[in-house]
């Protein structure tokens, strides 16, 4: 095999690797548009779509934040730097039964094995609550996380794409994002999400 052919093969392999990595990144993003119709029925809607240049803006601003005396900001910086996209859709309803099983199934269908792995599942028949956490792994690394919370009066889907340090997210301070960082996002109504 001459030098030229070998170089071409290396180049082709590199391109293939890049495309695979990109494909994995994009594959972690879920199609959540089918939930948009629930916005009219919901009392509270939170819709966050953050990727590409907007996420880069956010990362650059968060990295400039002063972490003096605030462990959360340091934690936040380490979480956000590996992310490629954050997508949240959360609907809170005044009455139960406002969303259908099909709405949830449309999301769940995208979280099928073998790509996605369900790591946590819990259901409560009394409260009609069904919660799941899915993980997308790329070798040893986490390439995406989806949290699906389906309660009688609430439906929340959190889809995070990229290297997601779940343990760090779970360990963020209780007050994180509350008083210190008031949200001005474009969601319809401010979500009342805090610790349940």
């Amino acid at each position, binding site marked *: 095999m001459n030098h030229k052919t070998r170089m071409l093969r290396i180049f082709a392999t590199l391109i293939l690797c890049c495309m695979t990595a990109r494909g994995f990144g994009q594959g972690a993003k879920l199609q959540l548009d089918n939930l948009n119709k629930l916005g009219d029925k919901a009392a509270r809607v*939170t819709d*966050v779509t*953050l990727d590409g240049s*907007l*996420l880069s*803006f*956010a*990362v*650059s*601003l*968060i990295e400039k934040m002063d972490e003096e005396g605030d462990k959360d900001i340091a934690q*936040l910086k380490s*979480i*956000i730097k590996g992310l490629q996209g*954050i*997508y*949240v859709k*959360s609907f809170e309803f005044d009455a139960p039964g406002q969303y259908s099983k099909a709405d949830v199934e449309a999301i769940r269908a995208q979280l099928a094995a073998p790509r996605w792995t369900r790591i*946590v*599942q*819990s259901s*409560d028949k009394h409260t009609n*609550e069904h*919660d*799941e*956490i899915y993980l997308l792994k790329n070798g040893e690394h986490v390439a995406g*996380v989806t*949290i699906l*919370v389906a309660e009688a009066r609430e439906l*929340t889907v*959190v889809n*995070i794409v990229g290297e997601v340090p*779940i*343990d760090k*997210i*779970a*360990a*963020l*301070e*209780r007050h*994180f*994002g*509350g008083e210190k*960082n*008031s*949200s*001005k*996002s*474009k*969601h319809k109504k401010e*979500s009342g*999400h*805090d*610790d*349940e």
Partner: protein
Amino acid sequence: MHFSDDDLRAALKRKDPGEGFTQRVMARVEQAKAEGKTQPAKKSNGSGFLLGWWKLRPAWALAVAAILLLGFAWGGYEYAEYRHQQIAQQERQRLEDLKPQQEEAEQARDQAILALRIARSKLNHVLEQAQIPVPADKIRRQRL
């Protein structure tokens, strides 16, 4: 006009310069020397005038010099102020141009924080529902 040889000969014939020719020549040379010394003074008429003014009216000359100095200082100050204002104006314009981008970035940051807040909240909720111990750090805080 036609000249004959005799005419030319008569015209170019030696003539006696007369008595005291040498003295007259020397006198003219001396006179020319004396005139040569005073000539440059005539040429530098302007500085001579100022020098003359300085000699005649030193106070006035000082006053003119002071006014000129003040004029230059004031002009320099005004120019520096003008440049300063111009730079400040340019900086304001630059910041004004960056404002929408900055607002967009701040909005994106707030959205990211909100999204992570929801993610944390839901993650911990699901873990609690599934009766999986939440991270030790959080347990410690809750006990506190």
